[in-house]
């Protein structure tokens, strides 16, 4: 079965576009907007990979990531942040707690390459 990816982002366009792109490449993608929805979705159908924004409407992304890591310690997580962070600094500081760090200005190709690297190609 193709890898299942949970996308957490409060910006609808971002999460929907990313989910659509992942589906085009054969992944199963579940986009959610809030930390609460993310926890519920992860409990119902544990994902193979989590892509999360840092700033969420109802919580801080790092807190959510910590919770998800406790629940799913083997599941890789990609942190996808906006431009308010200095990319180089954020990569060094935040990237240590996640499997990969990516800026939202990164291209889709770059994001998909990282996904493929973490969970493999979708059949």
């Amino acid at each position, binding site marked *: 079965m193709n890898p299942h990816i949970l996308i957490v982002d409060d*910006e609808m*366009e*971002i999460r929907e*576009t*990313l989910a*659509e*792109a992942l589906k*085009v490449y054969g992944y199963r993608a579940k986009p959610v907007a809030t930390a609460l929805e993310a926890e519920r979705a992860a409990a119902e159908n544990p994902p193979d990979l989590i892509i999360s924004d840092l700033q969420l409407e109802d919580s801080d992304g790092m807190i959510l990531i910590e919770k998800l890591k406790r629940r799913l310690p083997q599941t890789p997580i990609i942190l996808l942040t*906006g*431009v*308010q962070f200095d990319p180089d600094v954020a990569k060094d500081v935040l990237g240590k707690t996640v499997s990969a760090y990516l800026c*939202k*200005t*990164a*291209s*889709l*190709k770059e994001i998909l390459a990282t996904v493929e690297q973490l969970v493999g190609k979708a059949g």
Partner: protein
Amino acid sequence: MAAPVPFFQRLSVRVAGMILLLGFVTLPIVSEVKRHAMERAVLQQTEIQAATATIAVVDGIQDQLRSAESTVRLLARELENHPLTAADAETLLRDVLASNRSVTECGIAFEPDAFDPAVARFGRYAHRGRDGLVLRDLVATGSQYWTKPWYRDALARGDAHWSEPFLDQGGADTEVVRVSAPFYRQVDGRRIAAGVVSTGVDLKWLNDVARSYDFFDTGYVIIFSAEGRILAHPRPQFVFRETMESLAAKFEEPQLALMHERVLGRRQGALSYASPSFHERVHANYKPAQVAGWGVVVGYAESEFLQPVNAIRTQTLIALAATLVLLAVIVLVVAQLRLRPLAALTRASDEIGKGNLDQAVPTSARDDELGRLAKSFEVMREVLKANRVLELQVKEHAAELERTNAQLRAELLERRWGNQALEHQLRYNQLIIDSISEAVFVLTKALNISRINPAVVHLTGFEAADLVNQPLSDLVELEVTAPHLTDPLGRALKEGHDLREQSALARDRRGGQVPVVLSLFPLRDKDKVVGGIAILRAAGPRRPELS
């Protein structure tokens, strides 16, 4: 290579099997119908023979009995008009016995006074003895002949009368049947019964008659009297000891009693029934004799005549079955030979069915159904092959289209994602600028205003539309600190260095002036100055507007 068709599924084997099946189903029916017809024909023929034999037996009996009856009648006629002495009577009796070997006894008896008024009764009787003829005086022997049935019944009937057969003990000592007839004389013009004459007939000849018509192996003749007494029978122990009724009861064979009853009714006919006494099915013809009320049964076991029919039937069945098997083998061989091209055709179509459209269908020059079928298959294969090429081409085009679509979709998504990233970036950039509490102006290289933040509106009262594309110098005037310097803002930008913390006056919408501190920072794209950022910070209370 397709697997060969299993033997029992081959068309030729099935056709042969159907022939066999059809044959073995219809064969017993046809055979049974044929056997039935043959049996009927045989039985009809046998019945005719049996009926003929019955008539012959009856005729034989009648000849004998009629002969005895004629003798009695002649004797009676002789006595009617001729006076008779005792010696004449004895001579007459001797003559009768001498002239007729079947007659064993003979008697003459007179009514009272009829022989001689001087003699009350007169009767003479003669029979054959061991040592010759024996004469008896019926009156002297005290036989009281006038009380006997042969005498009394003949008178009563006024005609010849036949007795029931009996054992003539003391007489001929043999089984005899007696016929008696009255004779008459004219007395005073009246015809008066004068007496009775009788003869007894020995019944030994009956067995000869019965045996002479005993035809075939199982044929038999039964002769019985008016009262049903058995006079001739294939089993001698029944003769004179049984009657038709007693045998019917003994063997639970009611047909015997029925035949007796019908003979009494002067009827003739035939019965076919399972006989317990003969232990098989018999056919029995019965016929009454015209004399003495006797009856004759001529019968035979049907099996004797049906046996050849059954043998013929068995032989016919075997011959037909052998013919059928031979026919099935011939059909099998011929069909195999004729259908051989079909096997090759089947193999080819199997290959085609598996997708091997390069497998050529073996066609032949035959113009029969198989040849045409093979040609049709070949045409079909070529059409299928052409279709497959088309199908592959369509698939390739579809795959190409799909790839192009996927690529386009990916490109669209990439573009959408890029636009969103750019929008995100711009939004955050604007957010950063807008969040600064000091008035920020983004300037072109010519120091015209290109963008402001909300703090500018707050400071000056001007909206962005009022200021965009206006020279900064129309809004802000530097308080000159170095008179020798002209246009310090343009110079700083041109030279690409910052101008920090310069006192200036900013004009507001109402015509007043606001003392501010101005800092100018060049905007660099790599090494090239493409514009500037001016930041104003309020430095004192607002001065009233100029009048």
